[in-house]
């Protein structure tokens, strides 16, 4: 059963690709589901907002499946508290 992080990742993917969340499993291959490089930018942006984290560029290159994304986010969440600058409503100045 997908946990809360996985559910959020799947919901985000479903929203980016405009497909039902039920069609996405943890072992679904990102490329096979039609995620191209532009979709990846959008996906990371939405995931950063959803989890209030900052995903380093280097962490992105090895992502193959939905589970890779979920595990990567879990690692980032464990390593650091949510990034206050992401999705914050305080003025940038």
């Amino acid at each position, binding site marked *: 059963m997908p946990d809360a992080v996985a559910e959020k990742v799947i919901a985000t993917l479903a929203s980016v690709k405009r497909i039902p969340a039920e069609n996405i499993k943890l072992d679904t291959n990102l490329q096979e589901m039609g995620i191209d490089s532009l979709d990846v930018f959008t996906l*990371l942006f939405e995931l950063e907002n959803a989890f209030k984290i900052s995903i380093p560029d280097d962490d992105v290159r090895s992502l193959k499946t939905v589970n890779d994304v979920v595990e990567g986010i879990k690692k980032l969440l464990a390593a650091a508290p949510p990034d206050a600058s992401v999705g914050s409503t305080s003025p940038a100045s």
Partner: protein
Amino acid sequence: MGSRRVAITGLGIVSPLGLDLAKNWENLRAGRSAIGALQCVDGSRVGLKIQNAAQVRDFDPLKHFEGGKDAQLDRFAQFSVVSARAAMKDSGLELTSSLRENAAIVCGSAVGGQAAIEAGFEDLWVNGRGRVHPLTIPKTMANAGASHISMDLGLSGPVYTISTACSSANHAIGQAFRLVRDGQAEMAVTGGAEAFFTVGMLKAWEAMRVISPDTCRPFSKDRRGMILGEGGAMMILEPLDAAKARGARIYAEVCGLGMTSDAHHLTQPAVEGPARAMRSALREAQMAPEEVGYINAHGTGTLGNDPVESRAIREVFGAHADKVGVSSTKSMHGHALGAAGALEAIATILALYKGILPPTVNYLGRDPECDLDYIPNQSREARVGAAISNSFAFGGLNAVVAFRSPEA
């Protein structure tokens, strides 16, 4: 360099007058205006005074783009692709690999993906976010429309966008015409697209004090300014001989482009530059002024443009000016900036093809300074052999395209 005649064999349009060609023509012919209350933008927070506009209504990107692709295109690029697909289909042209490689795309857009960049600025400066959407750049770039058409239709010849404010689409159509005429392309997709209804853009237009508080009444007494519009319109050009050989429907021929600049003032209209552009288009088309039976005017409905354009027409056409039907279809579809010339080219081409001249609607009566036949309020049945379409831009850039009926 060869010099070939150039046929228009496909038309596609998404405009405030309708989401397809048939609906657009039905409304142009009936003289129905799409100008109405501005609903797509909430400007109440900043006291937006612009109340009316010509909006493309009921356009659903999800009907045209699958798998989240819609989010990769700003609204103006969506209009570009949807109208190009429709024009391609309408042409019935079969795309071989050789034709794909020799196909040009020349599009006009004055401001590109304004909604995308403005959403980014709002995130930064209003919502206090430290980041903007990662597709802001590729959605904002003015060539996005042309690039997406290229990818969508698989056309890989010369592809570029012309940005000359309100003359963009006419410059584009004229350049595409010359590419096909001169043998530098075997076909072309050309036209323009614009979608700029954002709070920031509307406030900027408001500050110019040229927007009418009610509606657009070109050349009419009591006119109070222009009404902004949006949309996309594309056409397929191919050599006339090739079009005839495949038995294609030929709407009209593009036969001349006139380009001049006023070298005068950033926003104030002038007589001389537009007059020279009309003469230049006629010269390239080898068209006598007396051949022209219809002029789709720039006709913004501002106090400044309309008398100046009327004088320019009189200067070029002399006594014949009284025999030419002149209308501004902006009274129906609004002023769509970089797409204006494309929406108006389609009105002009259909006028030639159908033998019906679209009217200037919202016309209340004669302004002594505007003394031509503006086809007031009702379309007119008239078989005319040739027509020109005028676009004059801020910055003093003028572009006029000349068309001939296929029967002429």
